[in-house]
């Protein structure tokens, strides 16, 4: 198998599995899938899921069943930064629709799409538990809250800079 965790990722994998009793290693599936997604380019290929099934000694279908159930696992390629904008009740009340429209205009993509340069993906999601700080979106591990058009501009510029700095 060509795809593998590096040493550091393997150490993390072992730490995750060690949380559960002997023989209950399947319990580590959700955290290990997070690790695989973070390690292998932000989304889960079939190869990555099969690799996880081998590591945890379970059938591949058990991994597919779980990976397709939870909304945080990406089963298609995504951009470097995924804007997951909340659209549920409290955010809607606080104007999330305007923010979503604005992001679409600024990035030139529709929900579910990735910009041509592969930097941004826009995803509409349901309640992220930040209703008091609405409207908001999640980008990677971070919540971006109290969004305004100006803030969105600044966030987009910030990530563009990050990418430019790496190139």
């Amino acid at each position, binding site marked *: 198998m060509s795809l593998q965790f590096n040493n550091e990722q393997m150490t993390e994998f072992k730490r995750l599995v060690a*949380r559960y*009793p002997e023989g209950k290693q399947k*319990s580590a599936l959700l955290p290990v899938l997070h690790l695989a997604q973070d390690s292998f380019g932000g989304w889960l290929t079939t190869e990555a899921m099969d690799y996880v099934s081998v590591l945890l000694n379970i059938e591949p279908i058990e991994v597919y069943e779980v990976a397709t*159930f939870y909304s945080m696992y990406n089963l298609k390629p995504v951009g470097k930064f995924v804007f997951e904008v909340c659209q*549920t009740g409290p955010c809607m009340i606080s104007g999330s629709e305007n923010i979503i429209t604005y992001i679409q205009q600024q990035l030139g993509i529709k929900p579910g799409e990735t910009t041509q340069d592969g930097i941004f993906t826009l995803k509409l999601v349901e*309640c992220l*538990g930040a*209703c008091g700080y*609405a409207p908001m979106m999640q980008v990677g591990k971070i919540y971006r809250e109290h969004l305004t058009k100006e803030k969105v501009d600044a966030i987009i510029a910030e990530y563009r800079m990050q990418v430019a700095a790496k190139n």
Partner: protein
Amino acid sequence: MGVKLLLEKANVPGIRTYDVYRREGGYATAEKALKEMTIESIVEEVKKSGLRGRGGAGFPAGMKWSFIAKPEGVPRHLVCNADESEPGTFKDRYLMEFLPHLLLEGLLISSFALGSNDTYIYIRGEYAWVADILEEAIVEATKNGWLGKNILGTGFDCMIHVHRGAGAYICGEETALIESLEGKRGNPRIKPPFPAIQGLWMRPTVVNNVETLAAVVPIIKMGGDEYAKIGVGRSTGTKLISACGNINKPGVYEIDMTISVEDFIYSDEYCGGIANGKKLKACIPGGSSVPILPANLLLKTAKGETRYMNYESLSDGGFATGSMMGSGGFIILDEDQCIVKNTLTLARFYRHESCGQCSPCREGTGWMEKILQKIESGKGEVSDIDLLWDIQRKIEGNTICPLGDAAAWPVAAAIRHFRDEFEWHIHNRELSQTSNFGLQHYADPIHVPA
């Protein structure tokens, strides 16, 4: 100022770290519990406190603990439900983010009382950075001897593990949470057996909400009887309310459940009134799944009595004229909000979050969303309202888990209290696309001077 038991120290700089938390008197209660108290006496104090589950259902925590089976040689588990996903609710996040050691202390005491050597915190996947904060706190607590083997020389071993979910509201339901913790799809189990008999890995398990477990600390510290004196009736102790929507000061507030809804909304200590000088239209007082109330029924009960922020008063009048305390997600809608639209976004949420296991929820949630979409976009007919009512009625109570009820109640309450707004949408197809029904169907009960 109301009594503060959980958030008392939330503003102390550095309280997130072990050193500051300890300096402020943290872990002293755990020490007292482990060294001076018996398992039975801890459970007894929690029972006496009258603490009710803070996750939404409000089931007495002490009673839940006493159901746990204790078969010889079978490990038991405590699982902390940190899968906070109910729209409008963000109190647990606040607690974990700012006071992680308070939760760990509560978990330690509770694990001791339940005999759980491996305790799990199931945190929603999106709260990734909060999981990091908890993991850091666990490392600190372990280093200082509060977790691990033979804690304080008592012979009690306890380890707390953080388990991140991956995006599924349904995992807040305790048996779905257990399935997810076992590395499976979050399909709720069919009960019985209940988790207290066969839960995680078929072992006896107690699942409690973050706030419930944190509240164990003040309960043990002050004694169950003292705790029960705070609040009113069966609404004992303090409750975290996460307030959001069109208010001046959204945020997490600790209340002692004797405050009136009106004071909570309009006082500067809490919500600070409706934002932008607008008028109050409606409120969903306990997280998106509880019935929405129009302003006139929110501030006063149907009998004309003042409504208070507690379990009994919020549910006064049943679903006909009352609502529920739920998870404490307090969502305020001002005069500019459209009830049809709001109901639609909630219906979409429940359709998206249905696990798809049982037919009424899998099929019914999507159907309701489509009809609401039709009405909202100006294509509805009056018969659609009756159809919606009938669909929600056929979902409610007929599903495996409470998600069906949670999806049905917001639709039912919206029709019950705002039928005229739905009809207005239907009769004014074009107008409804550009303007709002506003407060046409009742007068604003609060006169706010300009």
